[in-house]
């Protein structure tokens, strides 16, 4: 058996994974698995009857359909006639990289819990680690990693550091993910955008964002 259409292969796997995940969370894990572990792994929600549908009814229905369609797409990838360049998936990372990324998040979340730190720091740390890993080992995924990391950094730094610094950090990280990175240009761009966003978002639209970092008592911008 050779995979003739990689796109269908991975798409089918993805759909099956999503479908089965939704079904198993909604319905709960099957009995034989529970017996093997000795306790209910996932409790699940109530199914209800067609007349009075419980919270699990619709998701189980949809999830089953999704898993079946995923299976069709998956098996179709072995008999597909569209072989060749059109069916090759051009992703800058592979499934192991994805597992590593998830692993970083999980490890750092537990580390933060162990050290009694807020989960925000785990998120920031994961973003940092993943960006560093991608720059070092997967340069073709640099844009992807840095764009995602920059929005994470912005979100988790906004409250402690304030809008001004968080925006500058987002702009610098995301600009570094692009094709060419010029210090001067990015500095000017971030200056303009910071002024704009303070004026429009905080002053104009009165969004409740802190402007200055928490550790500065007297904020010069009001």
């Amino acid at each position: 058996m050779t995979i003739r259409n990689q796109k269908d292969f991975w798409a089918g796997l993805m759909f099956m994974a999503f479908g089965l995940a939704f079904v198993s969370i909604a319905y709960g894990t099957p009995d034989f698995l529970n017996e093997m572990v000795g306790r209910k792994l996932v409790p699940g929600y109530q199914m209800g009857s067609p007349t009075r549908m419980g919270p699990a009814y619709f998701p189980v229905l949809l999830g089953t359909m999704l898993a079946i369609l995923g299976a069709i797409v998956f098996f179709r990838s072995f008999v597909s006639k569209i072989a060749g360049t059109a069916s090759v998936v051009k992703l800058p990372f592979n499934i192991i990289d994805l597992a590593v990324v998830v692993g970083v998040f999980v490890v750092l979340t537990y580390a933060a819990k162990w050290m009694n730190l807020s989960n925000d720091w785990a998120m920031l740390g994961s973003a940092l680690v993943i960006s560093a890993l991608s720059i070092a080992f997967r340069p073709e995924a640099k844009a992807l990693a840095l764009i995602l990391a920059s929005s994470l950094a912005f979100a988790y730094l906004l409250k402690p550091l304030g809008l001004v610094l968080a925006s500058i950090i987002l702009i610098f990280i995301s600009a570094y993910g692009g094709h060419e990175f010029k210090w001067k240009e990015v500095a000017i761009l971030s200056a303009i955008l910071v002024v704009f966003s303070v004026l429009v978002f905080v002053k104009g639209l009165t969004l409740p964002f802190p402007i200055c970092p928490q550790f500065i008592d007297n904020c010069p911008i009001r």
Partner: protein
Amino acid sequence: MEASNEVLSFLQAIYVNLGIGFKEVFKTQPLTIMGFALTHVPFNILMCLIGVMLGTLIGVLPGIGPVATIAMLLPVTFSLSPVAALIMLAGIYYGAQYGGSTSAILVNLPGESSSVVTCLDGYQMARRGRAGPALATAALGSFFAGCVATLIVAMFAPPLAEVALKFGPSEYFSLMVLGLVSAVVLASGSLIKAIAMVLLGLLLGLVGTDVNSGVLRFSFGISEMADGIGFVTVAMGMFGIAEIIGNLEQKEDREVFTSKVSHLFPTTTDWERIWGPTVRGTALGSALGILPGGGALLSSFGAYTVEKKVSFNAHEFGKGAIEGVAAPESANNAGAQTSFIPLLTLGIPGNAVMALMIGAMMIQGIAPGPQVMTERKELFWGMIASMWVGNLMLVVLNLPLIGMWIKLLTVPYRWLYPSILLFMAVGVFSVSNQPFDCFLMSLFGLLGYVCVKLECEPAPMILGFILGPLMEENLRRAMLLSRGDWHVFISNEKPISQGFLIAAAILLAVIALPALRKKRDVAFSEDGSVQQEALAAEQAAETPKDAVAGFEDDGKSTQKWNVYRGADGNIVAVKEGFNVWAFLFVGFWSLMKDLFLTTMAWFAAFFALMAIGFIWQHWSYETFGWWAAALWLPFGVVYGLKANRWLMDKYERHHYKLVRQVTAKNAGIAIERGRRLAAAAA
């Protein structure tokens, strides 16, 4: 008698309601900006202006579309009144259709996916130094289409909403199934994958607290997920972030067309060539926009294809035919506007932008549906009036400001995307003031990026996402009412629900046919380059073939054809005798043949006579059909008899010369024989 009064009162109601709408749009209110207290600020019209300018801006800039922009601005609309918010967001959508043509014509880059076909002829016109007329044609065509489509929304939405008020849960459920199926059918690529994406969207929409039981579903114990995943978060991730990452992977090369844009106004010949395509594009766009899953993109492709079939100058397409700009540009604007009809009357979004509009309405505490029209009159009619005003603003502002938009095109993407990213992050963060939403946005960005790489379209997923909770709710209610009987959706007692489901089944069955699928793959692929290549290939295939047998006179056919040859070598054939098509379709036939006077004469005469009939109150809806037929017939006879003469006159006016009269079975053979005779004579 009474029925005709109904017609009059219906028109009167529209008139009165439009009055309410315009009053709402031009309403002034006190406003405080940064400490300055102002009285009498026409706030709604200001929002309309901001919306259309913003729409044009993002339409001009490739790499950011109306979906991401509207998603970005949704949190901003918190602080606005519902009318102002919806007016602004609507302005962005149709404004983007105007702006998209500018970059298509000047840079050969579609600023909007719906302007992909405009590149074909628009850019060629620009290369020949006719960028000005091309831009003007796009703007004026869009304006005409916008006005007509607004009228159509005003005419058709109220009766549709009245029907929709009678819908029960089973009808709603079936309608949503139909909507999702059409979204799947109109999506590009694999059918199964599109259905799977819809299912995935529906499932993701269910995340959060279950309304009926209060159970937290799929929340993984995360408190931020209790309210479900925000629509803005999903839309920004799947469209915004994924698009930025995708753009960054390609090398940046953008060359702005350097020639100066001069002679903006179209010449007399241009006018003669663009009125027909504009009217046809508007009609087609309006029809396709109403379909669930339709909208601007589908309309522009449909219009271009139709125009290439019927145009007098079909041989010029792809080489800078002005028709190829007028038709898709008017169609996409008409489609963008009529796609508001299902949203406003049924509360069901036809495309991703409309799904966002539903989000905006929900933020404002308005439940979308047919009751909006009766309960929030000023909202509905204000929005319609604003569309008209917005279109006027666009055409007035855009033509003089073209220089500014061209300048904008030279802004490099490396400055643009950090700004877009910042605005998106601010927008998502402000929805609930929690960093977790930004994390989710990144997650969906990754998912969107992977989906694009795996050729799974995000658009159907977004539709599913917004419809998920609605569908579950209606399914539950319908099943409760029917006591668990699944037949409730297809039973004869519910003909509307039955009809929707049958239509959905037919759509799916039809699209599964191999022949149609191939066409759909070519026409609706969202990747612009693929579309352009496909269209170019089609054009290449249509160039005349040589040496086909069977063009000799077999002496059997008696049908006479007049073969004409144009100054540019184009050869056409006109039949002698009675024209059945003209007899049957009268004014519509003239419209398809670009015969201005006869089209106008027929439409004016026909509608004037109808109006007289209604006003004298001798006609009613019941007898309407007979009167219309009686009116149609005499026109048909005259048009059938004269049609071919008019066509020949038109060709002679355009300096076509009569080559010869031939007898042939059909037009194709006649043209081929004419071509050979002309070649032999030369």
